[in-house]
């Protein structure tokens, strides 16, 4: 019994470590996007900027489902173990090579093209990895603990984000700002190859999934997993059910809790970047163990109840939560200590124009301890023979007091709890929907469409809805009419609310909550 449990921990460890590294690889590109864009995608070159957009969007939305199909098929044909070793090597290799590509200044257009190709390979590998790891662990786990064991895989996406931020932070601390911007940003990419090598050798020692090995020994392997998964009505109906009744809602709840909350606090509430990073990190840390709690609970009371409860709570709580966050930070609710207000003027040489731009930094202080900083930059440029003021740019940032900081942390934590409710049990749920011989293919596609497409598009759709509301308000204001939107900053939430709501109804009505056996 003890050795069986030890063996399971090895399987969990090997699978989770590899998946964590893949998430790490995927996130460092996003976290270092600003530096990467200056090195490979200069904004003054429209083609390079276009490639940058493709690299951002395509890897997440388009390529991931293709990776799910390609590697899912492979996993059902040759085995889970070999397939998720290939995805690991592919991801690690692509990440390492991104760190080696010479800059745009050195090799011109080849630089953004190479980075785009490597980024697409990353998306492809990520599409193949998750299904393999989840299936591999689920096929080893005892039936009454499948939710708990697979929930370890579910923690990797959050922990991978942490590790990526940590490695980047340590690299920044170890180097000067100039060195980091010059070559130090490549270090987190190079680190990946060491982690991948360790994970590869651990995974190499593991055996094949017992259920897959049994199906193979009995000669029941699928000859064409894609056709049997998506061309066969009896199975395809479950693929659709998995997408519209589970992963679609899970994807948007996941992205809202982990990424939209961050963007809302930084860009809408204008909380200082450092403070918002810290409070998000604390909320994520507090929430991460709940992946395991809800995974284990799903073994006792069923996956469906927990996932759907998470979606329903999200539907009803998102608007009050975001309103609370907005009002907590809003300076309209604070009393300024006018006597402490001060403005400083400084000058910076603009490298593009070689002219001296003026920077006015104004600090405002409030009775509750909050501080607001407005940085107004007046850019100068040449026009003909003269110098003119070209434009003004104002950046505001707010540092809230400790009590408000904790209010924000709790608000994000509640959203992370919803994430853990919908995401913790989902691997076990998906695995249990499909038969062993086409499981990898069948579960990977709805997962990556739900997360990559429905979830991945959330920031863009939410920004679109909020901008539309703001534009409508501006128009009405200029025409002297009543504003059509009372709270335009909350409009972006309609996307996750509607998607989760529809997903809840479909899941509630169509998903059968009876206990499933996966050993066919």
């Amino acid at each position, binding site marked *: 019994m003890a050795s069986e449990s030890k063996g399971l921990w090895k399987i969990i460890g090997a699978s989770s470590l590899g998946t964590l590294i893949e998430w790490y690889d995927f996130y460092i590109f996003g976290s270092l996007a600003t530096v990467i864009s200056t090195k490979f995608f200069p904004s003054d070159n*429209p083609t390079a*900027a*276009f490639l*940058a*957009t*493709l690299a951002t*969007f*395509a890897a997440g*939305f*388009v390529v991931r489902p293709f990776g799910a199909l390609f590697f899912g098929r492979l996993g059902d044909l040759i085995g889970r173990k070999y397939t998720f070793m290939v995805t690991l090597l592919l991801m690690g290799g692509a990440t390492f090579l991104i760190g080696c590509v010479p800059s745009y200044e050195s090799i011109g257009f080849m630089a953004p093209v190479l980075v785009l190709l490597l980024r697409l390979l990353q998306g492809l590998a990520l599409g193949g990895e998750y299904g393999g790891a989840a299936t591999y662990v689920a096929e080893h786990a005892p039936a009454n603990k499948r939710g708990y064991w697979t929930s370890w895989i579910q923690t990797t996406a959050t922990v991978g984000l942490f590790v990526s931020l940590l490695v980047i932070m340590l690299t920044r601390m170890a180097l000067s700002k100039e060195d980091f911007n010059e070559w130090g940003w490549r270090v987190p990419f190079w680190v990946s190859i060491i982690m991948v090598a360790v994970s590869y050798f651990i995974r190499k020692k593991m055996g094949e999934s017992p259920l897959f090995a049994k199906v193979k020994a009995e000669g029941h392997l699928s000859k064409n997993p894609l056709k049997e998964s998506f061309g066969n*009505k009896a199975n*395809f*109906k479950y693929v*659709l*059910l998995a*997408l*519209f009744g589970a992963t679609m809602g899970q994807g948007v709840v996941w992205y809202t809790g982990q990424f939209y909350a961050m963007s809302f606090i930084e860009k809408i509430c204008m909380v200082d970047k450092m403070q918002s990073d810290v409070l998000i990190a604390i909320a994520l840390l507090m929430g991460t163990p709940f992946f395991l709690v809800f995974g284990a609970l799903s073994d006792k009371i069923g996956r469906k109840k927990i996932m759907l409860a998470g979606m329903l709570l999200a539907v009803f709580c998102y608007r009050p939560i975001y309103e609370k966050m907005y009002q907590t930070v809003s300076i309209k609710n604070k009393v300024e200590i006018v006597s402490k207000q001060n403005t400083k003027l400084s000058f910076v040489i603009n490298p593009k124009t070689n002219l001296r731009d003026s920077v006015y930094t104004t600090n405002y202080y409030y009775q509750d301890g909050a501080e607001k900083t407005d940085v107004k930059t007046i850019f100068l440029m040449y026009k003909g023979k003269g110098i003119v003021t070209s434009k003004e740019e104002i950046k505001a940032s707010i540092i809230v007091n400790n009590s408000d900081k904790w209010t924000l942390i709790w608000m994000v934590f509640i959203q992370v709890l919803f994430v853990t409710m919908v995401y913790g049990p989902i691997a076990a749920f998906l695995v249990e929907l499909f038969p062993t011989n086409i499981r990898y293919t069948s579960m990977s596609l709805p997962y990556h*469409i739900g997360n990559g*497409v*429905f979830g991945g*598009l959330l920031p*863009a759709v939410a920004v*679109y809805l909020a901008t539309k509301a703001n534009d409508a308000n501006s128009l009405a204001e200029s025409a002297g009419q009543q504003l059509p939107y009372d709270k335009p900053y909350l409009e972006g939430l309609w996307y996750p609310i509607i998607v989760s709501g*529809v997903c809840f*109804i*479909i899941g509630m*009505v*169509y998903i*059968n909550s009876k206990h499933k056996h996966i050993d066919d």
Partner: protein
Amino acid sequence: MISMNKLKRLLGIVWILLAIACAYFGITDFGWPKVAHPKGNDDLVFGIIILFVLMPIIVGGLLKFGIYAIQGLYDEE
């Protein structure tokens, strides 16, 4: 009282109507304006993804799901 299987079949019509509504608003309000009059690269790529990735999945998938529901494929025996 309406049985669960009947409800599943009836809701099939709702999913088909929802698919049609998504197609209409997704193309006319959301995707096409971004492709026809983009405000930059992000807008254009976003519009293309809406039209050629998100819409086919939502519309095609929901239509198929609705048809399967009406056909009783999700009925419990």
